[in-house]
């Protein structure tokens, strides 16, 4: 019951949550939902916009791999990921992760696991435009550290 969507348009957070809850109703004891938003600042620079690019096909598969690993590791009932691409602005929703599990601890952990790996393994490129320049965002050592902690 895993599914992934890559899309330009915004997503309906509450609608997605309801759909997943209905799909796992009865079995699930918890659905953890996370939405990532575009911030208006990066390293003290005002961010005007964020452009996201992907490689259709390969990007979906890179996310499916993360979802499958999370499902097995945390015994999830369902995972839903939506990742937006194109031109986004501060306050916009970028990414949605929903994880359903029998118990809350696994749903919480799985949501963090999926988000951490989306940062390092999902095939996206982000270009940030500020008042003074535009640059391709690099993954940070903090992102790498977050993924490393799942490898113990």
């Amino acid at each position: 019951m895993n599914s992934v969507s890559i899309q330009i348009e915004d997503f309906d957070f509450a609608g997605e949550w309801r759909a997943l809850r209905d799909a796992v109703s009865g079995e699930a004891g918890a659905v953890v939902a996370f939405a990532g938003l575009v911030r208006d600042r990066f390293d003290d620079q005002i961010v005007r916009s964020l452009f996201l690019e992907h490689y259709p096909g390969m990007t979906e598969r890179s996310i499916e791999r993360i979802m499958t690993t999370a499902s097995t590791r945390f015994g999830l009932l369902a995972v839903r990921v939506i990742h937006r691409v194109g031109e986004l602005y501060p306050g916009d929703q970028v990414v949605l992760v929903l994880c359903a599990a029998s118990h809350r601890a696994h749903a919480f952990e799985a949501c963090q696991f999926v988000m951490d790996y989306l940062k390092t393994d999902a095939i996206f490129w982000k270009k940030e435009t500020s008042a003074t320049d535009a640059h391709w965002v690099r993954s940070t050592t903090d992102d790498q550290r977050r993924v490393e902690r799942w490898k113990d």
Partner: protein
Amino acid sequence: MNVHVRLFAQAREAAGAGQIDVLGLSPEADVNELVDRLGGQCGERLHEALRAPGVRAAVNQEIVDCGYRLTDGDEVAFLPRVTGG
């Protein structure tokens, strides 16, 4: 041998195009040879972008190493370091 190249992010900007057809590669050509050919065809800026640390190649959407031998009609993508989420 002809291949279809997909470029993203910095590499796409360096080439000024996201998709390029590379024609007349030698029948033995590998990914390395394609990178050099793209540099010759599209300029040093693209060559540098493709040789930058962390850039991976994918043939028909599967990651390969730079010595991978290409086949006529392959889609070859160059993936700079990713940043999702």
